């Protein structure tokens, strides 16, 4: 990726525009791809991530849907089973509860139940993340629900580059792929090459190399971990920061290789810590690299409560660099 990054260092786009560019590439290269979701056509999406698609590709490719999440997922499953490559949007990740049956019992299982005779090349976009004072029903990160479902792939782009590349990879994949975006990253600037490129699904990204500590992050927490790494370097912790990028498939090899080198690890995600995907990563690390660990694998995540509305509370709710640093200090007794 550094290679790519250098090539294109002069072209910077915000995360939100990278999403749109990824979708545009998908629609250009795949005649069977269409986009459907609530307010994605005429309004261009509530965050503008679909802006211009209706004008460019027309009403035959871009569809506003009713407020019917079960219907939207059904639309994807049925049209994919019939040969299309749907790209659907579930506006906020909090809303997947409305369509978990269609996700878990239909989309994820149909191929297996049918003995491999069905193929569902579906891309599902959804917006996760807290910090916008949107309270308990518009701020959740629920990747743990999806990662537990055989048949789905689940990616969480942390940068504009990955947002565009993973959307293109998802649409080329012949399986249902969830692309979990983060509303607090929409304005984040980053290198985004012109044209189509892919980011491998299931490959973690070592964003910062380090000697004696491994931090594995999901989604937006990458940025907080990089900030924390700076502070930690001042107390002798040289952190390797790995953006998991994909939780299903999860790149165990890259993470374990790092831990075997650094001997200490932490997982950071925005989701509620208890029962979050960080537990799976921690469990795997100690299973595979037990003898290499000098300290327990630490986990940073949200406390065990719904996301509070008041900025005064949300501020202390959402994991950040400070909490990462504090947790590392406690873990390592520094």
């Amino acid at each position, binding site marked *: 990726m550094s290679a790519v990054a250098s090539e294109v260092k002069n072209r910077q786009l915000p995360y939100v525009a990278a999403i749109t560019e990824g979708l545009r590439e998908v629609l250009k290269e795949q005649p069977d791809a269409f986009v459907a979701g609530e307010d994605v056509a*005429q309004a261009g999406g509530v965050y503008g991530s679909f802006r211009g698609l209706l004008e460019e590709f027309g009403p035959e490719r871009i569809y506003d849907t*009713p407020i019917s999440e079960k219907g939207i997922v059904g639309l994807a499953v049925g049209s994919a089973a019939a040969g299309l490559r749907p790209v659907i949007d579930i506006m906020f990740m909090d809303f997947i509860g409305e369509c978990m049956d269609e996700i878990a019992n239909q989309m994820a299982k149909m191929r297996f139940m049918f003995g491999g005779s069905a193929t569902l090349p579906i891309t599902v976009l959804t917006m996760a993340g807290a910090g916008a004072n949107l309270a308990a*029903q518009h701020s959740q990160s629920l990747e743990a629900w999806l990662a537990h479902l055989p048949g789905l792939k689940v990616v969480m782009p942390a940068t504009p580059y990955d947002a565009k590349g993973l959307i293109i990879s998802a649409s080329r994949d012949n399986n249902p792929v969830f692309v979990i975006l983060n509303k607090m990253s929409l304005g984040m600037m980053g290198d985004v090459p012109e044209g189509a490129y892919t980011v491998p699904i299931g490959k973690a990204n070592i964003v910062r190399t380090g000697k004696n500590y491994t931090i594995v992050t999901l989604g937006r927490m990458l940025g907080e971990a990089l900030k924390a790494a700076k502070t930690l370097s001042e107390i002798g912790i040289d952190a390797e920061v790995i953006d998991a990028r994909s939780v299903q498939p999860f790149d165990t090899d890259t993470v374990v290789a790092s831990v075997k080198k650094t001997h200490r690890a932490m997982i950071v995600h925005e989701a509620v810590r208890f029962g979050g995907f960080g537990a799976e990563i921690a469990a795997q690390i100690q299973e595979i690299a037990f003898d290499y660990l000098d300290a327990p694998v630490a986990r940073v995540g949200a406390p065990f409560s719904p996301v509070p509305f*008041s900025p005064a*509370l949300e501020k202390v709710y959402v994991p950040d660099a400070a909490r990462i640093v504090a947790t590392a200090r406690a873990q390592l007794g520094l």
Partner: protein
Amino acid sequence: MAKQPTNKVLLDIHRRMVRIRHFEEQAGKLMEDGKIPGALHLYVGQEAVASGVMVHLSDQDQITSTHRGHGHLIAKGGEFDRMFAELYGRATGYCKGKGGSMHICNMELGMLGANGIVGAGPPIAMGAAFANRYRKNKQVAVAFFGDGASNEGSFHEAANMAALYKLPAVFVCENNGYGEYTAQVNHQAVVDVADRAAGYGMPGVIVDGMDAIAVYEAAGDAIARARKGQGPTLLECKTYRFYDHVGVRGMGLTYRTDEEVQRWMKRDPIKLFEKHLADLKVLSKKQAEAVHAEVLADVKAGVAFAEQSPLPDVSTLLDDVYSVAS
């Protein structure tokens, strides 16, 4: 058949409408000034619906609301001070600052919460109506929801169960013609959501949601029917939101024409109603102005209360996740 509202009732409805209007206008300003965080969905334009329905209800009757819930809470008796405090995210708010605009509620007033999930209200109202029937207490539960929400499966299941069990429930669809930025013609193939009533075995009634008296009468019939144990009604109120889906822009929006907005604003429910009250000699222009002035003073006091209120202490974050009483 619908009974005529007494003068007392007319004035009551008027005050509720005015209270909603001024609260919302102020809330919009405060959001623009960056004093209220998060998202605000203003009820301006739909005041006749909440007021015309709620005047029939006691604090024991329950309602469920939507993301556009301030008007429902105000019409149900919500106090400005604790409401503004909630929008500000203060410890003195109705939800101690944990809910905000999209979850503002008051259980004592039977207001079972604004809701961030479109379509979440009807099943909950159906459940409250079930409790009323179970207790034989003659209370009614009213679900407010939008035209967009009528496409959620949750509405379908709730309506079917309410009709099946003949529950004391009323389903009030506030059809303002849009779900977010999507016009009704682009989210359902029917013009009247009330057409869905027959499929559940309940009456479907359509009323002008800008006419407080029409709403009052139709709601009165539906609520009386529910109290008598004759089952639920689907009451569709044709209305309009004067501002954008979120925030305070009214004109110059891409998804609706200014002409359309102006057409509806000519039928401002408060202006219509005040003219009607003046014609009836129930409320003179001067008396109306006095009501507005009183309400504006309440608004001012409410904002002051909110701004003087403390933010929630971080130590309270994990409170209220579980009930520890037993």
